[in-house]
């Protein structure tokens, strides 16, 4: 295993120490070493919390910042944070207006958030949730509630975070974050597996010359194993899973997020994006804004995830709002 590590069991703690040293202007430690908090949360705003397993950088701590998430609970690699950490994140960000907990649909996170909310109720803290379930490959459309969260979580945080930063109430933040989720559809393609440091060998197998269509962010098997395709064919395949699902239609305006899974050269993400953009254009679907890069990774997996969000005027304004974090920094427009 050719990796940069000390004791693999300490990787999350050491990563967080390094993260906090590097991003002292954006994020800060809390009493719980597994909770990271934004430095510049505006007074009186609704708290926006997320959390999840590690190994997905920039997700989740990388979206702690101004105009995004106020605190993140951090788990072991690919492992939900504890209920206590979610609860501590709620406490750290509540300013009286309540907390929006925006997280991804994984059984561990569901359980721990549920338990954390019970703790919050006991101290009279109001927490409402939105659960991202944008990964179209993980369940049929009529069982959307079973779908995993994908890179679409980033749009959920961006939209919810912008609303909270703009002074929105808890219900407003929840409403727009839920709208973002409802409008967002993702799919992944896996080209090579990843290795958990404490395990030391690949998590699963992807045979050379094949690719896994619909792979999850932890290498969860997807829809189908198909022979390796060109970028052009991958774009077709991914859009064929996403577009009918909303369904996206001619004259729709969308935001596109194309994220690498970790080890795919960024150059290749642009090649794939080029094809995706061409095909959307051919269908008369307009890309209003796009993001290409490593926004939600899976250690050193190769491959990419494609996320498309249908926009309306409200979502456009929130998407364009200024924000500052490790994973996403943009000037307002």
């Amino acid at each position, binding site marked *: 295993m050719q990796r940069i590590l000390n004791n693999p*069991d300490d990787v999350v703690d050491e990563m967080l120490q390094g993260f906090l040293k590097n991003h002292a202007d954006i994020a800060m430690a809390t009493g719980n070493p597994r909770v990271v908090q934004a430095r510049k949360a505006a007074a009186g705003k609704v708290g926006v919390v997320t959390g999840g*397993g590690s190994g997905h950088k920039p997700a989740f701590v990388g979206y702690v910042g101004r105009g995004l998430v106020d605190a993140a609970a951090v*788990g*072991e*690699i*690919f*492992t*939900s*944070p*504890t*209920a*206590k*950490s979610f609860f501590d994140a709620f406490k750290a960000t509540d300013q009286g207006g309540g907390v929006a907990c925006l997280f991804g*649909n*994984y*059984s*561990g996170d569901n*359980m*721990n958030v*549920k*338990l954390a909310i019970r703790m919050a109720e006991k101290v009279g803290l109001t927490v409402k949730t939105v659960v991202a379930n944008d990964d179209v*490959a*993980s*369940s*049929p459309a009529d*069982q959307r509630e*079973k779908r*995993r969260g994908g890179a679409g979580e980033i749009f959920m945080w961006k939209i919810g975070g912008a609303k909270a930063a703009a002074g929105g109430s808890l219900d407003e933040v929840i409403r727009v974050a839920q709208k973002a989720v409802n409008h967002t559809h993702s799919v992944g393609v896996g080209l090579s597996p990843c290795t*958990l440091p*404490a*395990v*030391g060998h*690949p*998590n*699963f197998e992807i045979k050379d010359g094949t690719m896994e269509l*619909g792979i*999850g962010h*932890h*290498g*969860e*098997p997807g*829809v189908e194993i198909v022979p390796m395709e060109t970028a052009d064919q991958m774009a077709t395949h991914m859009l064929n899973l996403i577009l009918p699902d909303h369904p996206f239609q001619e004259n729709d305006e969308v935001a596109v997020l194309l994220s690498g899974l970790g080890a795919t050269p960024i150059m290749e993400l642009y090649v794939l994006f080029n094809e995706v953009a061409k095909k959307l254009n051919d269908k008369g679907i307009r890309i209003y804004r796009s993001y290409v890069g490593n926004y939600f990774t899976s250690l050193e997996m190769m491959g990419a995830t494609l996320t498309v969000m249908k926009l309306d005027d409200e979502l456009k304004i929130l998407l364009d709002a200024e924000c500052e974090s490790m994973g996403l920094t943009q000037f307002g427009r």
Partner: protein
Amino acid sequence: MDGFANAAGKSIVMKMIAEIQANKVYLSDIDGLIGDGDHGMNMNKGFTLCKERLGRNALTFTESLAALGDILFNEIGGSMGPIYGMIFIEMAEYAAKETVITAHVFAGMLDAGFNGLGDIVQARVGDKTLIDTFVPARDAFAEATASGLDFVCALQKFKLSSENGMLSTKDLVSRFGRSSRLGERSRGVLDAGAVSCNLIFQAMADEMINLIK
């Protein structure tokens, strides 16, 4: 005395810990096939942490089990933290005041552990989760005890049903969350949680049998 002294039972938890440590990579490998590969790693981390905390302290079975549950729940997270955390905490709580752990007490502990999951876990037998190990083992133990078998024999039944329950997950199609769209691809593979639950139950029962004899 058909049972063992609670005060002597720390070794049961130590045995459970050793078993998980020995199977760290195996458990992650199974989880890697249709899950995310972290199961062995996290179980190992939590159980190892518990071993360090327990150290040489003289603790009872239920105190040790409570400590393990507490660490899993509060420091490990994942799905295992709340599930095994709740199970162990509730099992320990149920018997905390007992000096002797009898078959009757242990049956109660198993019930309490399962009930502790409450609405946290919606999975039922057949959903390809650790419930497929837990429930048959618990039921077999209760039945054996009710039918008059002694503690050791009931534990043998418990072991057998646990093993069979674990094996049953191989042919099941996952219906819960993560792998539900996999359909047939989820068949043919054991469930990681069912395997770890069986490892824990085997270790638990073996050491109980040692203590009873």
